[in-house]
């Protein structure tokens, strides 16, 4: 029995065929795309990382079973297209997802690609194989998968415990490439082998990453580029200066802040720049297990004191979005309607009134103009973390809270949070796909490793499962909205804002699409070419 999703996929496929032919007419072969990279990723293995510093340079090396269509900015179920799969189908009451695989695909080392590679990859992700990843940050994505089975060399099935339409979305993320069975995880960390449009050449830590064109790529005529070179420049101003000076064809994707964007445009008016939401939310993690935030009134007061517009004005010169857990509309697919959002305490437009209410709550808890509450705000020693923390501290002043910034080095951040050795933490949560399953289970379900606050609400947990199994999109949306509202009202992890960032490239660079509801999925770069 075929689901609506499968039909949509077929439709999407036909769209893809049309668009590729038009692109093919325009595209010019050749050239090396030069991009700067914001930092040196620890290794080259996408499955073992949790930062898009890995996805950007290494996604071009791989293929997924399915992928979000690379030239559509907004990721959705409708834009998922086959890649190593030729087609897919939901069978067995939506409890089995079966893929027919592409034949004749070769790994970069010449070995043929088969269904065994797919099984190997996902067995390893589920922790079922002999070989282990050093780290496996997205193991929880496959919680509902019983096992992966093969049928011959070119068919593979995911057998689920219960229907989970979102699995397809997870499989379409840039985070989910297929790894070769014959290469060990350790080798994949230093010298990745894929089936993708570009072959890995070298990775010099803190220096550069080089990729070269895969001449045997299964998609004929692709890629256009002869290669991609990433030069690692952690210092942002040096990097931007270098881009302006023509040392690079493109900036690191979604790494140009709004003030820098202005700078780029003024220095190089020909540069093409886009600003998109990147589905990264800045939020506050609250330690509700210890004083003072074990007091629900103080938690609520804090939520009420937030002036989200001010954050956005300062950080993004107005170009940011207010929302709940899910990325706000229009880029986000699952965002609450405006009226619903504004009914949540602290989201109302009248900041003054909110703060008056917050003050009352604080007074109720025993604080006032003469008795301030001293609070430590912990955050990582990175500007995107630190800057909003500074604003947060300033805003808390208005409700008798004296915040002190506690800057934590990356190495100590996670252990500190895990030890519950903090009061408030300023945190960034990036969402790999704009999908409720990914964000709810990962960040709010009881026992999830990324549920830093240990927020645990069995009621909501049930709603998580309900929306996850719902195949009717509209019904599912309603459920998602309800959950999101509840999470905000519970001050589970108050969301301050959703960021928007810029990407720039020189006008001769063509075929780049910056995605608007994820910053992890759009870097295959096989359609990118240079008009030089």
């Amino acid at each position: 029995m075929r689901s609506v999703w499968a039909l949509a996929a077929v439709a999407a496929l036909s769209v893809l065929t049309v668009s590729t032919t038009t692109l093919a007419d325009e595209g010019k072969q050749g050239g090396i795309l030069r991009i700067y990279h914001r930092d040196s990723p620890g290794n080259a293995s996408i499955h073992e990382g949790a930062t898009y510093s890995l996805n950007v340079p290494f996604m071009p090396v791989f293929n997924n079973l399915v992928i979000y269509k690379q030239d559509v900015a907004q990721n959705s179920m409708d834009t998922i297209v086959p890649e190593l799969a030729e087609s897919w189908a939901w069978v067995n009451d939506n409890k089995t997802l079966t893929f027919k695989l592409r034949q004749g695909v070769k790994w970069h080392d010449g070995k043929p690609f088969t269904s065994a590679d797919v099984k190997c990859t996902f067995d390893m992700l589920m922790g079922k194989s002999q070989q282990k990843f050093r780290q496996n940050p997205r193991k929880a994505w496959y919680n509902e998968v019983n096992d992966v089975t093969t049928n011959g060399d070119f068919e593979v099935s995911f057998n689920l415990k219960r229907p989970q339409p979102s699995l397809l979305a997870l499989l379409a993320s840039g985070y989910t490439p297929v790894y070769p069975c014959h290469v060990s995880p350790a080798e994949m960390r230093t010298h990745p082998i894929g089936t993708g449009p570009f072959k890995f050449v070298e990775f010099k830590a803190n220096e550069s990453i080089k990729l070269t064109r895969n001449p045997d790529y299964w998609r004929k005529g692709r890629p256009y580029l002869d290669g991609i070179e990433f030069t690692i420049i952690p210092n942002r101003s040096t990097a931007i200066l270098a881009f302006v000076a023509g040392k690079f064809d493109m900036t690191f994707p979604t790494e140009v802040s709004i003030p820098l964007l202005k700078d780029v445009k003024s220095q190089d008016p020909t540069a093409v720049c886009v600003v998109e939401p990147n589905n990264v939310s800045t939020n506050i993690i609250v330690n509700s297990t210890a004083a003072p935030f074990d007091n629900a009134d103080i938690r609520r007061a804090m939520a009420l004191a937030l002036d989200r517009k001010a954050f956005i004005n300062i950080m993004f010169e107005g170009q940011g979005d207010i929302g709940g857990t899910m990325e706000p509309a229009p880029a986000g697919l699952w965002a609450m309607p405006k009226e619903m959002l504004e009914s949540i305490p602290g989201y109302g437009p009248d900041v003054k009134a909110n703060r008056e209410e917050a003050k009352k709550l604080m007074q109720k808890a025993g604080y006032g103009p003469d008795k301030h509450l001293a609070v430590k705000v912990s955050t990582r020693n990175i500007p995107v973390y630190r800057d909003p923390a500074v604003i947060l501290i300033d805003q808390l002043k208005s409700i008798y809270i004296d915040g002190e910034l506690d800057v934590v080095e990356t190495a100590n951040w996670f252990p500190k949070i895990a030890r519950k050795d903090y009061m408030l933490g300023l945190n960034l949560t990036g969402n790999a796909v704009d999908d409720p399953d990914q964000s709810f289970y990962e960040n709010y379900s009881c026992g999830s490793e990324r549920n830093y606050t240990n927020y645990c609400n069995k009621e909501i947990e049930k709603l998580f499962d309900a929306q996850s199994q719902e195949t009717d999109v509209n019904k599912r949306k309603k459920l998602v909205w309800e959950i999101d509202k509840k999470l905000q009202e519970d001050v589970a992890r108050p969301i301050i804002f959703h960021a928007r960032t810029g990407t720039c490239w020189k006008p001769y660079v063509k075929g780049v699409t910056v995605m608007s509801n994820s910053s992890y999925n759009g870097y295959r770069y096989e359609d990118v070419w240079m008009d030089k």
Partner: protein
Amino acid sequence: MLVAERRMATIDYDLELKRAGANATGGWRRVLFLARRHVLGAAGLIIMTVFVFTAIFANVLARFDPLTVDAAHALARPSAAHWMGTDSFGRDVFSRIIHGARISLAVGLGSTALGGTIGVIVGLTSGYLSGWFDLVFQRVSDILQALPLLVLALVMTAALGPSLPNVIIAIAIPLIPTVARVIRANTLALREQPFVEAAKSIGMSEVRIAVRHVLPNTLAPLIVLATAQLGSTILTEASLSFLGLGIPEPYPSWGRMLSESAAEYVRTAPWLVIFPGIAISLAVFGTNLFGDALRDILDPRQRG
């Protein structure tokens, strides 16, 4: 004959005497006289005075709270209201620089005093006791000096965590052997001096001799060294801040102000980068100028 006449005619003997302030024996006239002889040193002293004055009266001088965020006035250009503009948080740069003087002074004085004190104790002990203590000191100081200062400070701040006292400690530790070496060398030389021998002969205790006789005589080189180090500690803090390990936000440390995120604004909001840079350079420059003059005055060997 002509040459001599020309050369000598320019000198009015009595006027020169008067102008040189030869008769000034104390008070302001003496200070003015010294200032005229050491123009650069006087300039340095003025800069340092302004610097210290700013640090002490930061609360009075600052026109805004250095930590208050003001979204409405973010990245404002320098104007009558905000003399040095505002940063991306709308915080007044002038007020932050005024308050930053406190931090820089605290780091400079704190680490110099800490490193200096320990260095003096170690140096005196090592130079005075000789023996195994001296041997151990020499090796430890070799070790510390073979490690680049910034590397040592980097690891230290990483180990201690970024905070004002920790940064002071991290900068002070590499300072210890430098100070101790100078004091040790002086102590060794002084030990042979007759007045020390004399003190010994009348049965003064070794500690007493070290503290009462040797220490005061090493004061001049110590002061010279300390002033010279003051500037470099301020610079080290700035470098640590640049590498993200200095005094954390929101304290308005000059190094932090002009590093990292502020560097993003080097062209769109250059005042964010220029003013703190000038503040650091000027403060360090001032202490260096002053330290130079002090060395000229206090260290007779260097007198020119």
